[in-house]
């Protein structure tokens, strides 16, 4: 490992964070966008390198300020973090590549430096959460990413973005504060904030009441941030009315990072130490996951606004991720972690398509989209591919995670049949809601005849197709995410008896 590699965990966060302070000063047209995109690309490159270094199960530790853990703040990157980092930085980079024209159409020029600066802060915050190995540090970066997301979402041109983001702010803050209470209670009982140290020390006090309360607070708090059903109520409107590019970015990775923290915290700190915790964890999350899957998909079937439709589909997809985790098995966790990656690919592509549609259709109600597929065949083609991935058709990335998930559930034996039924019913519901859009977009008539020829910025088309092709590529050759997810689940579970 060369000298620079050792610093990568820190650089992953510091580069976008510091650049955000510079971007805010870049007034000239397009410069802020260019700088942001370049920064994000650098971050992406860093995460690729980190993934390469951790693929074999290695962990890269970094002592901030040179102070040894648990006294200083430690960073740690392993296969799990690397995978989530890839998702975060990749989503940001691809979205930014296509973002310029869409952002120009939604955000006034003089406000754009603030917007892009907030984008980088969101990126830095999310990356910061992922690399952190310190419970309180996670909170700090969670707040950076949350505040930055509120800013980004509030940039939506529709005024309904404002109540939506306010609701998000309230629920997000409650979630973060619950997390903080949980961390406080654990700190009180163990005297440490470092996750690895906590893992060692919590054992002696594992049966004490504050720890049990802490587990509850942390799970609920992070569940709020991750939009686990029924704590998802902030999500649909926040996604629907945010600027389109912001939705594409955040939908691909923001809730996933909270799930990452939830899994990490739970499996590193609680699972092995708290008696009966595995059962409680399953018993609590499994029903919620199943309900989330069914209700999210069910609502999506009847939703009339394209972005809200996708948002409810996200609620269901988060259910899949939680479902895999709640099985508390290597196969289940692998499925869950893999789905974090694959869902990001599909949803990112879909929301980018929504952005392209919105630029030409004047609205995103299904009624506005009549016949748009024929006017924008390339965009529509990408939509179909990503939609198929969401459904889980073989040859797409979504299929791979569904395969893993069903295989994992089969390990349960007969009780698993009911769960498989839920997964399958939800997949079929996905067929319905995706095909509703396909039919309208392809066979429908434009709401107003004589609409202008569509203008689609080439960069946006490029971004859309990068995502669409990634959906196909990782459907045929899923080794990279599958290996990372495999190592990650091993890592999370190798403590367990």
């Amino acid at each position: 490992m060369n000298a620079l590699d050792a610093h990568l965990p820190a650089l992953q966060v510091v580069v976008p964070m510091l650049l955000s302070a510079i971007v805010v000063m870049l007034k000239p047209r397009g410069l802020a966008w260019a700088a942001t995109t370049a920064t994000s690309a650098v971050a992406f490159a860093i995460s690729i390198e980190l993934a390469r270094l951790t693929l074999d199960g290695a962990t890269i530790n970094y002592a901030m300020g040179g102070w040894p853990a648990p006294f200083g703040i430690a960073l740690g990157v392993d296969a799990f973090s690397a995978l989530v980092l890839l998702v975060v930085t990749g989503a940001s980079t691809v979205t930014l590549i296509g973002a310029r024209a869409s952002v120009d159409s939604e955000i006034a020029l003089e406000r754009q430096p603030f917007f892009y600066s907030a984008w980088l802060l969101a990126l830095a915050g999310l990356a910061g959460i992922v690399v952190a190995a310190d419970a309180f540090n996670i909170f700090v970066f969670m707040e950076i990413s949350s505040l930055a997301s509120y800013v980004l979402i509030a940039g939506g041109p529709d005024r309904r973005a404002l109540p939506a983001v306010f609701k998000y702010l309230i629920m997000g803050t409650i979630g973060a504060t619950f997390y903080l209470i949980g961390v406080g209670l654990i700190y009180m009982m163990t005297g440490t904030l470092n996750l690895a140290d906590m893992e060692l020390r919590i054992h002696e006090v594992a049966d004490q009441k504050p720890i049990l309360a802490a587990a509850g607070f942390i799970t609920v708090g992070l569940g709020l941030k991750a939009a686990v059903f029924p704590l998802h109520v902030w999500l649909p409107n926040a996604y629907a009315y945010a600027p389109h590019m912001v939705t594409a970015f955040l939908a691909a990775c923001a809730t996933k990072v909270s799930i990452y923290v939830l899994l990490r915290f739970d499996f590193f700190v609680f699972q092995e130490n708290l008696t009966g915790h595995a059962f409680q964890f399953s018993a609590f999350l499994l029903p919620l996951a199943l309900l989330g899957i069914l209700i999210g998909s069910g609502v999506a079937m009847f939703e009339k606004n394209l972005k809200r439709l996708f948002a409810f589909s996200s609620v269901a997809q988060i259910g899949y991720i939680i479902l895999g985790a709640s099985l508390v098995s290597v196969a289940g966790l692998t499925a869950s972690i893999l789905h974090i990656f694959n869902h990001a690919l599909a949803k990112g592509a879909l929301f980018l398509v929504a952005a392209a549609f919105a630029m030409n259709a004047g609205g995103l109600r299904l009624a506005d989209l009549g016949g748009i597929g024929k006017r924008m065949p390339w965009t529509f083609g990408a939509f179909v591919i990503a939609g198929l991935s969401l459904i889980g058709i073989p040859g797409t990335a979504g299929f791979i995670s569904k395969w893993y998930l069903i295989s994992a559930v089969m390990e349960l034996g007969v009780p698993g049949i009911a769960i498989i039924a839920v997964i399958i019913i939800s997949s079929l519901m996905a067929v319905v809601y995706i095909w509703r859009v396909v039919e309208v977009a392809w066979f429908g008539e434009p709401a107003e005849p004589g609409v202008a020829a569509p203008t689609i910025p080439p960069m946006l088309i490029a971004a859309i197709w990068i995502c669409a092709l990634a959906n196909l590529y990782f459907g045929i050759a899923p080794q990279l995410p599958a290996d990372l997810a495999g190592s990650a689940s091993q890592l999370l579970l190798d403590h367990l008896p």
Partner: protein
Amino acid sequence: MTVIFGVFLLTLLVITALAIVRTENLFVAVMLMGIASLLIAANFFILDAADVALTEAAVGAGISTVLFLGALALTNAQERSTTSRKLLSTIVVVAATLVLIFATFDKPEFGDPNSPVQTHVSPWYLEKTPEYIDIPNVVTAVLGSYRGYDTLGEVFVVFTAGIGVLFLLGANPGVGAGQQAREINSGLRHHLIPRVVGRLLIPFIILFGLYVQFHGEYGPGGGFQAGAIIAAGIILYALLEGEKRALEVMPQKFLLGMMAAGGLIYGGVGVVCMVLGGNFLDYSVLSSNPVKGQQMGIILIEAGVGIAVTGTLLSIFHAFAARER
């Protein structure tokens, strides 16, 4: 004696909190909130947390109140007397309270010197600080160096809030309206006594702020508190002399520059450490003597914090003030 005082303050606090929820006049609620903050600050002081007490007083009772008042001026001061989802809310709240009360029973005893909190990590800080950093205020040492990365994050949280408010409110509600606002809001220039008293006070406030800034290594204080105090001083100036004058002294662009520069100074120090062969924010490489390097680093980053906080708070204040029509 302190025990009784503590119980008294806490009881007062609970009463204040209940009053905050019950009152329908938002102005009263904000004022009570300021009082609650002061009570909390007093409690912190009893609990040996001088730095936190200073911060809570400056922020909770000061800045936060100003912001709330600014928002009230732009909205309504009266709440409609409806409570939605009363039953559900009550159930949730009561359930959560019971969980919390349940959790208290296994807690280590209050102030127990043998509790894990007191025995695990913190003794190291108290023991090693003279050796590694050699400044009297251990809180500053932890804040600036041991957990300097958190503090960097904190600066960027503030920065995010700053650009967020500028992004939301900076988009002017029409140039004409903004102009008008500034003319109307000409401060208290025509009121002699507040103006004279205020003018006398402002230099002292700023001086105190600078003292807090640079005395952070020795006593309670540091960049954040100093930034809040200096910002408060300048806000007072703006209130007395009018927005326009204040903006002439420190234009928006300059404030934005401060916001960015503060974060960049802090992060820059970290990057320099990295370039010099240490880890990020490892100040000991800044000088040939590691202890001196640590001290230097802490002074620099505290300066960054102070600049960023001052710039951000003032930007936020101006953004709110410019909205008034």
